[in-house]
């Protein structure tokens, strides 16, 4: 029985399947415990601070709310060194191509927090000059509401990103057969999504 052959009775596990699933599970634990753990505790934000939310972002980085507890005080202003882009503030149409370019310059893996009502949906500025939400033109992982969001709210957003990073590349349990060595047929998603580290699939 080689790997890759589907048994006639799929609920019956072969010992090769069990080995693969246990190995997958071990890789997941290792991944979550080392790579993802390291990433989530050292998210370096790219502070794309345009307006008032930028001041609350600075306040989050200052001494009272201290984003350094999350390992995220290294606000490097160069996209090459950052993994978390925090779009803080309204994005005018004139600024939008700049934001797109900076997002593209960030290296993988990268996540985006859309901070504040203006970045999420355009906020109070429903007019000719403001983009009605950055998710109209770039992918966003976490939306932090508020005008401006309190620093605690932003920290909750950062913690949500940490939860996303924790589970990054980890296949959910039901795909792995619930640990019982069953290989479920997984239908391919309509848009191919690349999970895990490059080179591994």
């Amino acid at each position, binding site marked *: 029985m080689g790997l890759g052959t589907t048994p006639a009775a799929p609920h019956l596990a072969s010992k090769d399947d069990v080995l693969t699933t246990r190995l997958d599970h071990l890789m997941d634990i290792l991944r979550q415990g080392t790579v993802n753990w390291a990433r989530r505790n050292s998210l370096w934000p790219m502070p794309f601070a*345009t307006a008032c939310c930028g001041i609350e972002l600075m306040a989050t980085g200052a001494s009272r709310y201290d984003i350094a507890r999350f390992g995220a005080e290294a606000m490097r202003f160069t996209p090459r060194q950052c993994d978390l882009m925090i779009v803080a503030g309204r994005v005018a149409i004139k600024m939008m191509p*700049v934001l797109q370019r900076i997002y593209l310059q960030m290296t993988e893996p990268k996540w985006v927090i859309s901070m504040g009502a203006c970045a999420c949906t355009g906020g109070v500025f429903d*007019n000719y000059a403001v983009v009605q939400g950055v998710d109209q033109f770039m992918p966003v992982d976490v939306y932090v509401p508020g005008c401006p969001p309190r620093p605690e709210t932003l920290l909750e957003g950062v913690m949500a990103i940490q939860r996303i990073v924790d589970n990054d590349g980890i296949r959910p349990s039901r795909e792995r057969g619930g640990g019982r060595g069953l290989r479920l047929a997984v239908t391919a998603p309509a848009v191919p999504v690349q999970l895990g580290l490059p080179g591994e699939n």
Partner: protein
Amino acid sequence: MTQVAGQSNPFASATYAPEEPGGDLWTLNLGPQHPATHTTLRHVLELDGERVVKCTVHIGYLHSGFEKQGEHLNYNQYVVITDRMNYVSPIANNIAWHHAVERLFDIEITPRCKVVRTLMAELARIQDHLLCVGAAALDLGGFTAFLYGFNERERIYDITEELSGSRFHTSWTRVGGALSDISPRCIEMIREFVRVLPPALDDVEKLLNRNRIFVERTRGIGYISTENAINWGLTGPLARASGVRRDLRKDEPYLCYADNWDGKGATALDFKVPISDLGDVYGRYLVRLEEIRQSLAMIDKLVENIPPGPMNVLAGDKLTLPDKRETYFSIEGLIHHFEQVMTNRGHRPQVGEAYGANETANGELGYYVVSDGGNCAYRARCRPPSFINYQCFPTLVEGHQISDVIAVLGSMNIIAAELDR
């Protein structure tokens, strides 16, 4: 740099002529995303090595249609938008907006309201200067001063949260009064703040005033003469650091800075206006620090002397919302409430125009309001100090090095939202 004859730059050695005129120039684009903490500003610098030969400024990266929005929101709704202009001292914009609108309505607010508004205006000035000094130090590498400044600003946020419910964008003023009265707890917090700020300011001064690096990076940098400052339209600490003797609180007094502010002969608030003739980045820093100390002395006097009485002008003129007991328990009160809040109702000023200006931390913040008799302004123009102050920036940096560009930018306190509106 353009100089008027008779004014000499004592630090002329900080700028120098190119050895090889027309030699290799290269272009550097600084912004709109850049390491200095001044949001969306863009400079295109033409450099001869490290030295700036020409600087072109591009703005508009935060243009959000504020003035257009003002034509669609009524006089009490627009205060929410004004918060978002100079966002480092939001309550000052609220006060300035309603100052102009109350001039349009030709009404006089109550003495208690004047005192509390003056108090909040001075707190806003401290808030703004603390951030400006902190961010200027941060841009030059002094992270600690930034943290000290922000820590004190958090106390001001606590005060505004107690007063208006929101720590940052307060939207606190209304036509004829304010959203909420000042509570005893808030007064206690202000007293505590007055007690706690001077040691923090002393710490910042110890870190920066005689710091060799800070002084070398700011002395002689970004000099502008008095005549040029006036001609370019500079106001506020930028102008006062260049020797322009002008402060709206003394020259065109309003609120508690004017004599007889309570209608019973009270004297105007006594304070000094710091003026420097250094004209460079260091001078602006010193002027701002001294303004914080003066503001603190003013707050100390004001908080002990808040007169009793109503905060809002009488509800009978249909300018402010009636007391909730009236709204809930009498039909006239309910009608009056709806007259104020429904979108096809609201205030109906006369047809005309008015301009009202306040001296905020950045300079003369004025609103030019045109009314056509409707409940929304016909034109709500903001006279933005950051915009007008920023025009002279290319003349300030030509001849300096790239790192001086950041120092000058930090000293000008350019708030991008006020700049671009």
